[in-house]
């Protein structure tokens, strides 16, 4: 049987990659990079790097970073809430998760963005749980009916209560890491158990150009010590916070991420770290950060290729859109991103459900995107030979009357070779009219309701839930918050 090719997209030659990396190293050494975190500065100092105390500028030597790269794992394992299902993050494996930390939700009934509430958060977690092509969940909505200081941990609580999937998350405050880790450990039954089977990834963004803030550096250090993977989210905005050229933005991206890898490895040798990002082709007209721009996706594919070259797992913000509603633009940008990301073999792709520049989640879009991700998975599974011979034996005794539909061969393969979407419209014109000429968002909305109605919540066991609730309320109390919305 001839081997199936895994289709792949590459945008950079090997020489180009090496040049970008060389220049990144040169900048890290000569110009240095700002790290506004005492502990990290101490780690760098101890490793023999020149640290300018006043300015927090570190001059990073190539040999140190290269050493750190040798201890960073090429492949990371994540486990779901039950600890039974294992996910490989590395190689050319692709896992989609909803774009995270939306500030608003698109209300299908009014067609307008509004602030999400606890109920939306629950629906969102339950829905994500049921979508087959979305492998991970993300703490994707910021609930507006809880006091802000606990917003980051609140969303994680619901994710763990209502879904089994591993979580892509992150902290908004330095103090939040501890309770968030405690929630995760409560599910696993201890810190050691959590480190052995990580349940979550923590996103941490450098601040372009060439700076790691106190908050996100601390997150890198804390996650490393807890044995949890960090995702480095470098995000140059071309011409605004990084050079305007795509190649120039890649150099800065690589420099910032390499510094992140070094921080993680110095905090704990061998700790898992993912080479990710959320750069954008800055819109020079409107001052916005379009995630659906083809140039944004080119930067993503470019740094992912470099991440692979460095032998690290990769991540990108792709498969999302800047449209404000579920229109043609939303489908186009999401489809392009999901397909290009999958072809590039990006391991974690965050984006589904997102609209309006990483700021609005839509449940309808999430189910549409699940189908899009399914198409991307189908594409990268490639064209398989399936049988030997491929066809000649099936044509034996061929006549014009040969029936393909009833051939055993057809029945054997049709579900494996082809997919049958629920939401995309493949009806005849008359059937479409008869069904009310419904736009895709309406069909998606019906589907959302059907999923939520027919799937009982994947609730965590009662005693774990009690422990999670205890941690959440204790943390809320410590922050002077006496009561939380009635927990569903």
């Amino acid at each position, binding site marked *: 049987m001839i081997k199936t090719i895994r289709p792949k997209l590459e945008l950079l030659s090997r020489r180009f990659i090496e040049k970008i990396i060389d220049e990144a190293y040169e900048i890290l050494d000569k110009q240095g990079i700002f790290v506004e975190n005492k502990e990290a500065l101490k780690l760098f100092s101890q490793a023999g790097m020149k640290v300018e105390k006043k300015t927090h500028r570190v001059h990073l030597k190539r040999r140190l970073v290269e050493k750190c790269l040798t201890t960073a794992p090429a492949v990371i394992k994540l486990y779901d809430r039950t600890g039974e299902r294992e996910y490989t993050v590395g190689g050319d494996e692709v896992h989609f998760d909803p774009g995270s930390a939306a*500030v608003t939700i698109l209300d299908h009934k009014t067609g307008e963005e509004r602030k999400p509430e606890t109920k939306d958060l629950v629906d969102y977690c339950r829905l994500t749980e049921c979508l087959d092509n979305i492998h991970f969940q993300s703490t994707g909505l910021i609930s507006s009916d809880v006091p*802000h*200081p606990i*917003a980051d941990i609140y969303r994680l609580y619901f994710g763990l209560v209502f879904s089994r999937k591993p979580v892509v998350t992150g902290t908004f405050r330095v103090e939040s890491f501890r309770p968030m880790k405690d929630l995760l450990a409560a599910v696993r039954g201890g810190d050691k158990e959590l480190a052995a089977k990580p349940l979550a990834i923590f996103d941490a963004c450098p601040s372009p150009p060439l700076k790691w803030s106190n*908050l996100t550096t601390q997150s890198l250090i804390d996650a490393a010590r807890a044995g949890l993977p960090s995702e480095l989210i470098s995000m140059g905005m071309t011409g605004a916070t990084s050079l305007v050229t795509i190649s120039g933005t890649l150099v800065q991206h690589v420099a910032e991420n390499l510094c992140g890898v070094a921080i993680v490895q110095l905090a704990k040798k061998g700790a898992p770290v993912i080479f990710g990002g959320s750069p954008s082709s800055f819109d*020079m007209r409107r*001052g916005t950060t379009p995630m659906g721009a083809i140039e944004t996706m080119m930067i993503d594919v470019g740094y992912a290729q470099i991440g692979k070259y460095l032998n690290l797992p990769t991540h990108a913000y792709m498969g999302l859109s800047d449209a404000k509603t579920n229109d043609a633009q939303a489908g186009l940008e999401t489809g392009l991103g999901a397909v290009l990301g999958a072809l590039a073999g990006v391991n974690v792709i965050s984006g589904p459900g997102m609209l309006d520049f990483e700021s609005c989640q839509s449940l309808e879009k999430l189910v549409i995107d699940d189908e899009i991700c399914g198409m991307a998975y189908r594409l990268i599974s490639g064209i398989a030979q399936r049988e030997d011979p491929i066809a000649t034996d099936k044509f034996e005794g061929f006549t014009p009357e040969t029936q393909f539909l009833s051939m055993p061969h057809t029945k054997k393969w049709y579900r494996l070779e082809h997919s049958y979407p629920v939401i995309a419209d493949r009806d005849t014109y008359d059937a479409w009219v008869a069904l009310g000429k419904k736009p895709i968002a309406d069909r998606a909305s019906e589907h959302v309701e059907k999923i939520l109605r027919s799937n009982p919540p994947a609730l965590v066991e009662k005693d774990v839930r009690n422990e999670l609730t205890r941690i959440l309320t204790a943390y809320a109390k410590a922050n002077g918050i006496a009561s939380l919305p009635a927990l569903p």
Partner: protein
Amino acid sequence: MKKEELFARIEKAIIEGRKSEAEDLAREAVKAKIDLTEVIEKGYVPGIQKVGDLWEKGDYFLPELITSAECMKAAMAVLQPELDKANIKTKTKGKVVIGTVEGDIHDIGKNLVASMLSANGFDVVDLGADVKLEKFIEKAEETKADFICLSALLTTTMLGQKKAIELLRQKNLYGKFKVLVGGAPANQKWAEEIGADGYAENAMLAVKLAKRLMGA
């Protein structure tokens, strides 16, 4: 060089975003002892106004806009000491204290707003990012500001906009400054809810809003 010719060259330097030329022309004006308020009113201001027009028409994009705004700033830095020496008060459109609220390091949007306000004749004190709420009020009092502009990009930090207004109330200073809010999670409704004087979605609209609130 005739006065009119100088004004025309200044205007052009601003429109085309040539910084060293904008500065040199300011020095030339000082040397020639031309009335500096006239230099500003007839050279620099028309220049930046044309830049605004070109932006609105869609001919200019952010790089042109910001380059011109920076030229304006550089030229004003040359003229300001001279004006101070001669004790001349220039007509400012209003005094602004701006910053990103505490806990929040997003500052790109805030910088754009500050640049555009400054280029359009506002006197801007930029406190930077991650700024303590008290600091905004102190600085506003100290500089007798007309505006306090609060930027916040996180749902957690946007609460700082509300707290700042509460703080003004506590100190009996509410109403003394016009408070403007902005950043991704903010909107008109939020501004009204917390008792701010205005919200704007982008830097150009922020300039319009501030001008309107100053009755200009």
